[in-house]
């Protein structure tokens, strides 16, 4: 990282933070702070929604994911446009008609206050911890590859976000997210251009795609109805729809974004923009991973990308694997050359394709053993090498200046996701807990309280990030924790919208039972955690109906 990189990086980030503080200086009422004065146009809302969902880990791990597993991950997002249409058509008009600040306010008009506050509490717990992770996850990767002090990185990201979020509230969050998305999209586009430039001269796009396809990286859509394959068309359209509906419909960090629209029409258009743009954006980020993969067919890739972790493995075993890896990579290169020669002659036959597949299987076997060695030397922590593929490539192969810009991309994503989380956490604490208890205070009091709660949540997030740095396993637990709360949350909203006969007491008890069921499934069964959403939601619906019948 050169002085030019530091200049680009600090210049970009300081400009955005200063812009956020400047834009937020006119916030003098609680409403402006909490809903951004409700003056946002649809493109700002659309960008804001996308920036909220795209965390730093999106940009760190998606290219790595495509590098290892191909483009199939995009299927996870197939349910998203459907979720946007359902929100725009059914749920958003209800929120707008009720003039709510938070999604949970709706639950009081539909059920009662205790159901509202229980659901808001589930949000505060899950999003509060996730805000810590959105700071911690990029901090650990950047500190590992750049040698930055981990705790200082945590505090720096947290402090910058707290500064403009507390000054300008929802308005500053949305305005900075527009700038952050511009940096993110511009930086990623430049990355694609430079990456293409680094591929061998004369290699055509079609050849690169055929080559990636011979390694199985170009299987975007899997129509097979297999349930043991994680990403298929069907899992995307069912499980994916479920996750996106829960996230966009009931998670206040998103609801706050689109409720800041100047009208119902602007909010709807913002959601629909996300529905149209999201999948092309995800496939473009994944495509970076495909270009990386093609690049590493012509340049020897490292055995593991997390070099800091690799250095901690026993040297003798690591050395043996390294030399085995060099041999397999040389063999793979020969298979690639044969394949490309056949492709240029006309069409490769199954002989060349099988040679590629065999070389790939052999090198992959060595890589898997290396991953196991890394895991074994880090006391049972699952190695996540995919998070390091893109950043290591950036540092080793991109020119000065572009490195700084791409680190800015990662930090912009971290800040945009964290800012939306802190703003919505402060908002929910005020609107769903504080204001109902203290209904007679004046507006300046609520504005001060909202700012205080935002600072409080910022400190919780930074504190949790610092704590998580000490306990690496915690991060995996927190990822699962998100899935533990979404099912019951979506369930109570679906009951509210669609099953009119279920009333407050039944809904409240059903949420508690569903939460207990999900926690039990987590503690005592081996069910994949993506299914917790379905279980939690189903228990709320079924128990809500049964309890209502029983009570009556």
């Amino acid at each position, binding site marked *: 990282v050169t002085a030019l990189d530091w200049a680009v990086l600090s210049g970009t980030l300081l400009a955005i933070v200063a812009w956020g503080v400047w834009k937020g200086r006119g916030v003098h009422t609680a409403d402006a702070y909490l809903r951004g004065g*409700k003056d946002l146009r649809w493109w700002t809302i659309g960008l804001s929604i996308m920036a909220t969902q795209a965390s730093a880990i999106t940009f760190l791990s998606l290219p790595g994911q495509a590098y290892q597993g191909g483009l199939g991950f*995009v299927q996870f997002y*197939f349910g998203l*446009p*459907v979720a*946007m*249409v359902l929100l*725009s*058509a059914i749920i958003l*008009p209800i929120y*707008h008609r009720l*003039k709510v600040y938070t999604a949970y306010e709706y639950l009081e008009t539909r059920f009662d206050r205790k159901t509202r506050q229980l659901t808001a509490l589930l949000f505060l717990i899950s999003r509060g911890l996730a805000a810590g992770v959105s700071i911690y996850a990029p901090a650990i990767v950047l500190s590992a590859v750049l040698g930055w002090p981990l705790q200082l990185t945590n505090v720096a990201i947290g402090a910058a976000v707290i500064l403009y979020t507390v000054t300008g509230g929802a308005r500053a969050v949305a305005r900075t997210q527009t700038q952050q998305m511009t940096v993110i999209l511009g930086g990623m586009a430049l990355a694609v251009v430079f990456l293409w430039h680094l591929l061998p001269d004369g290699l055509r796009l079609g050849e690169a*795609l*055929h080559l*990636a*396809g*011979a*390694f*199985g990286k*170009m*299987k*975007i*859509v899997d*129509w097979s109805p297999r349930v043991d394959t994680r990403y298929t*068309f069907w899992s995307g359209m069912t499980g994916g729809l479920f996750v996106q509906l829960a996230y966009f419909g009931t998670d206040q960090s998103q609801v706050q974004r689109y409720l800041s629209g100047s*009208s*119902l*029409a602007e909010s*709807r258009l913002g959601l*629909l923009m996300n*529905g*149209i743009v999201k*999948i*092309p954006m995800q*496939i473009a980020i994944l495509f970076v991973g495909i270009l990386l993969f093609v690049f590493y067919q012509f340049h020897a890739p490292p055995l593991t990308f997390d070099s800091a972790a690799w250095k901690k493995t026993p040297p003798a075993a690591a050395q043996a694997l390294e030399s085995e890896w060099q041999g397999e990579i040389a063999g793979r290169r020969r298979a690639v050359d044969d394949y490309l020669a056949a492709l240029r002659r006309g069409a*490769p036959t*199954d002989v060349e*394709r*099988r040679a*590629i*597949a*065999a070389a*790939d*299987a052999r090198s992959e076997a060595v890589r898997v053993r290396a991953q196991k060695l890394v895991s074994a030397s880090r006391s049972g922590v699952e190695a996540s090498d995919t998070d390091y593929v893109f950043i290591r490539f950036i540092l080793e192969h991109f020119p000065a200046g572009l490195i700084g810009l791409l680190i800015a991309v990662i930090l912009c994503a971290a800040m945009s996701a964290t800012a939306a989380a802190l703003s919505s956490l402060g908002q929910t604490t005020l609107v769903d807990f504080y204001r109902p208890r203290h209904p007679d205070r004046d507006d300046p009091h609520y504005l001060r309280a909202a700012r205080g709660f935002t600072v409080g949540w910022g400190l919780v997030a930074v504190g949790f990030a610092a704590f998580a740095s000490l306990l690496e396993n915690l991060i995996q637990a927190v990822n699962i924790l998100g899935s533990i709360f979404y099912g019951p949350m979506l369930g109570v909203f679906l009951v509210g919208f669609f099953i009119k006969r279920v009333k407050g007491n039944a809904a409240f008890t059903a949420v508690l039972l569903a939460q207990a069921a999900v926690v039990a499934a987590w503690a005592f069964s081996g069910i994949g955690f993506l299914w917790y959403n379905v279980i939690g939601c189903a228990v709320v619906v079924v128990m809500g109906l049964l309890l209502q019948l029983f009570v009556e």
Partner: protein
Amino acid sequence: MDADQPPDDRRWRRLHVLVLLVLAALIGAFTLITKLFDERLPP
């Protein structure tokens, strides 16, 4: 919000259908790309 025109339901329905058509077109394009380029064989 109060100043909004009465919602033009038909226009919104068309826009919602358009979003779903874009999704269908993307999935169609992805399926075509998969057919053209996914040529992995078992080793």
